[in-house]
């Protein structure tokens, strides 16, 4: 099902949604693109993607899980108030939406993380097709079409007169039903597909081959030492990664009360696996190998998807230019 809307009307529509939901859209803050509460006035047009992935809107960098109070020797644990306010995020990219779908099964399963799952279920995902291949990205190698996706409730493509929307879910349909949207044809949707600026002639690597070879090269210590030589363990690749989800549990305490939090952690840090007398990943090359092998093989063995969407954030923002694309090319060789 396809719908059409002008640029002005889309803004009005989103602004109107603010009455019943929290509306989030990309904004430029201190020179960086980020997801922020929509001001109701302007939608960014020059934006490619945010520096931080939207994962933090679902898996918060710091999230209170429960609190406690001790009074006169007795201790009481209290549950944080549950939030079920609706939320709409506009402007999400296909890579980041796929990342959210990749994370979902991790937080489902026998032990459901209600915090993540509730954030997901209370949010409508409105995607926006890319027109430019981001610097450092390799989404197409990862099997993601930046202009086509089923990971959203509604996916928008820009057209000369505004936007053409593909309505994917019932929730999306409900939202666009009685509003500024007009019926559009599949033909219009197809016409709104842009020639992506800056695509590659041929893929950098074959994903199937990477998946198989990463397991094969796992025991090759020299290979991984060579690959990871310039890594400085800063962990920025994991913090900016839309699929990295490792976390720590930590306590914050004040007199008579405290809270336990879930906070982001990183396999790039030596402390991540440090035990009392032993650390299985003390050496840097082991940690780098773990990150690549986990994303491109181990995660797949558990959840049947690769834990990378090729957004390229780790490539662009690595302070020592350790380019994951080059690593994968070497792995696949």
């Amino acid at each position, binding site marked *: 099902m396809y719908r059409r809307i002008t640029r002005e009307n889309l803004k009005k529509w989103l602004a109107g949604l603010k009455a*019943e*939901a929290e509306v989030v859209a990309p904004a430029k803050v201190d020179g960086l693109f980020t997801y922020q509460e929509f001001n109701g006035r302007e939608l960014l047009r020059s934006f490619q993607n945010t520096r931080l992935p939207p994962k933090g809107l679902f898996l918060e960098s710091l999230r209170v*899980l*429960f609190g*406690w109070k*001790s009074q006169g020797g007795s*201790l009481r*644990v209290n*549950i944080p108030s*549950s939030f*079920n306010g*609706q939320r709409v995020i506009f402007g999400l990219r296909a890579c980041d939406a796929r990342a959210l779908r990749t994370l979902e099964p*991790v*937080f489902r*399963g*026998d*032990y*459901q*993380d*209600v915090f993540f*799952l*509730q954030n997901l*279920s*209370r949010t409508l995902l409105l995607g926006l097709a890319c027109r430019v291949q981001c610097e450092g990205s390799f989404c197409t190698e990862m099997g993601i079409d930046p202009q086509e996706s089923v990971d959203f409730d509604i996916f928008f493509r820009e057209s000369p007169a505004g936007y053409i929307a593909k309505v994917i879910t019932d929730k999306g349909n*409900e*939202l666009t039903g009685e509003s500024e949207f007009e019926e559009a044809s599949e033909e219009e949707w197809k016409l709104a597909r842009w020639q992506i600026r800056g695509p590659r002639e041929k893929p950098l690597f074959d994903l199937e081959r990477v998946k198989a070879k990463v*397991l094969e090269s*796992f025991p090759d210590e020299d290979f991984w030492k060579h690959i990871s030589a310039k890594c400085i363990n800063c962990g920025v690749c994991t913090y900016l990664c839309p699929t990295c*989800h*490792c*976390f*720590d*549990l*930590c*306590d914050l*305490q004040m007199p008579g009360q*405290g809270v*336990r939090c*879930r906070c982001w*952690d990183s*396999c790039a840090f030596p402390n*991540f*696996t*440090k*035990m*009392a*007398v*032993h650390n*299985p*990943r003390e050496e840097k090359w*082991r940690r780098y190998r*773990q990150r690549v*092998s*986990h994303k491109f*093989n*181990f995660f797949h*063995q*558990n959840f049947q998807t690769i834990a990378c969407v090729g957004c390229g954030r780790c490539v662009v923002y690595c302070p020592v230019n350790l380019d994951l694309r080059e690593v994968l090319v070497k792995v696949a060789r």
Partner: protein
Amino acid sequence: MNQRNEFPEGKNIYQPHLMEIIKIIPETGDTKTFHIQFVEASLGETFSFLSGQFAEYSVFGEGEATFCISSSPTRMDHLEFSVKRVGRVTSALHQLNEGDIIGFRGPYGNHFPLDKLKGKNLLFVGGGIGLAPLRSLIHNVLDDRSNYQDITILYGARSPQDLCFKYDLEAWSRNPLVKMVTTVDVGDKDWKGKVGLVPIVLEEICPSPNGAMAVTCGPPIMIRYTLKSLEKLGFTPSQVWTTLEMKMKCGFGKCGRCNVGPIYVCRDGPVFSLEEIRNFVSDEF
């Protein structure tokens, strides 16, 4: 937009139950065993676990740490766990007194394969605090003695002062249906047991692999050499079981740190047969 209440199941997997410490037994200079009971008695009535499983224990304000349940599922009036003082949470636990409240989440992980041990000669090889998970299984087996054949327990520590669970060691050595061997790396003038490293004593007592199963827990270095000795004695990899030690936080395969190859030690372990371990992609544990 319809308002949906989406707190699925409404259950917070990170929230611990409150437990009261009812007894503290000093084992060695740096190790204590805690006996705990659910503050909410009804929880205690429905709680169940199997030998080998572990739990997450909280000292509120200091954090959470992972220990196996060292008591037996056949003795459910309280739970026991044993803690060596090595870091922040363990030090905080050591500061606590009887009557204090801690947090408890669990049980997590898999368990020792009782079905595979039934009808077999059993060999338990433990070192130091590594006796804790074995002790749960040993009590379990002894409480159901007729289902098993010969039982041999080999336990070692660095010195006589470092022996944990001395009350159990004494009871087992008095038990006519158990062959109990205790050894220390370095003895003293009062020591009457064996002196020598566990793997060496193991080869000395030379248990037969015929119709036998071996279960071993202890420090990584002891495990490594014990596995070699067992192999030398003729035990096949499917006859040998051990527990893997890995840093854990969540206990259910989400936080990521105990990942070894496709396996999460907390979710898929901590109990593995040597056969399974041999097939691991990685040796990082």
